[in-house]
């Protein structure tokens, strides 16, 4: 039974990973076709020489960093509030944002921005993308942090207040450090979600805010190109290193 389970799990892992591994391997192929013609870095060079790609990569990093920061902060506070006592309207709002299909969320935000633009002199751009990303990340942060808070003993905060800490000090000195792993996990999740998003971003992006997924999408639309393989592999690798580093830092 457990033997069989292991084999099955291995097969599912293969299904999950093989496509990406193959993609990675072929990014080092000298040929642009699926025939192996030897090791080459030409597609990486091509990617590095593409200023649009580099700019988009930078934009993506900026957006993801800003969205992660904001969403994690807001979401953590919100999770704390909900942990203390439930709040039906806020939970309903979070559920709505959690189950809104991406297209619908993107379009509703675009429509909202356009409505707002009639009254304020604002333009689509980096900030509209960041705001949108925070919006779809928020519910996930609350979800993850709240799950972590639920594993904590409620008496810990009482103990802190009992020992002379104010409510804020109890949060700052006890709950926040204890929720740390959950917050870190939520931040990583935010970063990944934001860095990955195409559908919503493409709808609310404006001048100066072309992100990496948008460029990859445009490239994929123009056909399978080894440059995309190279960029994708670099992203996978880069994010992998990022996660490892984050994990290290957390452990240390």
């Amino acid at each position: 039974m457990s033997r069989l389970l292991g084999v099955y799990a291995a097969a599912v892992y293969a299904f999950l990973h093989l496509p990406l591994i193959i993609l990675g391997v072929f990014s080092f192929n000298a040929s642009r076709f699926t025939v192996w013609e030897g090791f080459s870095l030409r597609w990486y060079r091509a990617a590095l020489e593409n200023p649009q790609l580099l700019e988009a990569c930078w934009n993506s990093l900026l957006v993801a960093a800003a969205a992660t920061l904001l969403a994690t902060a807001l979401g953590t506070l919100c999770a704390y509030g909900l942990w203390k006592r439930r709040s039906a309207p806020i939970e309903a709002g979070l559920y709505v944002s959690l189950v809104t299909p991406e297209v619908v969320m993107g379009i509703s935000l675009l429509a909202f921005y356009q409505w707002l633009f009639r009254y304020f002199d604002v333009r689509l751009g980096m900030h509209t993308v960041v705001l949108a990303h925070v919006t779809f990340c928020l519910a996930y942060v609350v979800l993850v942090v709240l799950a972590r808070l639920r594993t904590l003993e409620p008496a810990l905060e009482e103990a802190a207040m009992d020992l002379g800490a104010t409510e804020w000090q109890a949060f700052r000195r006890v709950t926040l450090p204890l929720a740390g792993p959950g917050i870190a996990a939520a931040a990583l999740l935010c970063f990944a979600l934001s860095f990955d998003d195409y559908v919503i971003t493409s709808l609310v992006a404006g001048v100066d805010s072309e992100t990496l997924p948008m460029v990859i999408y445009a490239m994929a639309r123009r056909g399978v190109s080894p440059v995309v393989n190279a960029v994708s592999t670099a992203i996978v690798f880069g994010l992998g290193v990022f996660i490892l580093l984050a994990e290290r830092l957390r452990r240390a």
Partner: protein
Amino acid sequence: MSRLRSWFLAPAGLWIAFFVAAPLGVVAAYSLLTRGTYGGLSEPWTLENYLRLADPLYLKILARSFWIAGLTTLLCLILGFPLALFLARSGERKHLYLALVILPFWTSYLVRTYAWMFLLRDTGLVNTLLIEAGWLERPLALLYNDGAVILGLVHGHLPYMVLPLFATLERLDRSLVEAAGDLGAPPRETFFRVVVPLARPGIAAGSLLVFIPCLGAFLTPDLLGGGKTVMIGNLIQNQFTAARDWPFGAAASLALMVLVMLMLGLLLRRGGERFL
């Protein structure tokens, strides 16, 4: 009693009001307007956009989306359940194995979709290998069909299924399984009569997390389906671009939202696991 709590909830509450509720309100308003001559919005206010949704054509697309999303969910469950069970029982190396499930989730969804395009096209790796092995003479049409769409969706959403399942199964007391075995239940029976019923909250949560995004998916059917498949997501997106019919797109969006919320409500009422 807690003033801090109110301060903490306020920013997120305002954010939700501003960026979730208000946009949906704008969409709701749009859905009641009329399309202008060349697109755009104009008066009069009307319910016509909602009436148009009752068209058998759109119901058919809805049914099709349900079918594809449902099949994807089922496949994710079939692939994901044993994996989650394996994870829950893998003891020491649990974290490593878990990381291996999450890792592809960290890579761009677009990249994963693209990887399938790379593998499945006529001159892709699968066909190339099969031909070189002499099993095929002409490449199989693997790309641009419902199968490819479902494959892409399953690959993209599997972690959403595995994680909640794992969370439930991990909590599931091992001794219960042993007790069932002790009472003379064969492994198969233990699985279906003890493990599966106890894992129901996880199954419900995972299914929801897979089903809802799949229902509204539009990238995957677009890229892997070759435009031959329309799901609700494509229909909605099309209204805002090619068709330039924002009011109708808005009505379709809201209808989809209501449907999804109803499903969620039903699930929560039936005692599914709360996410929050």
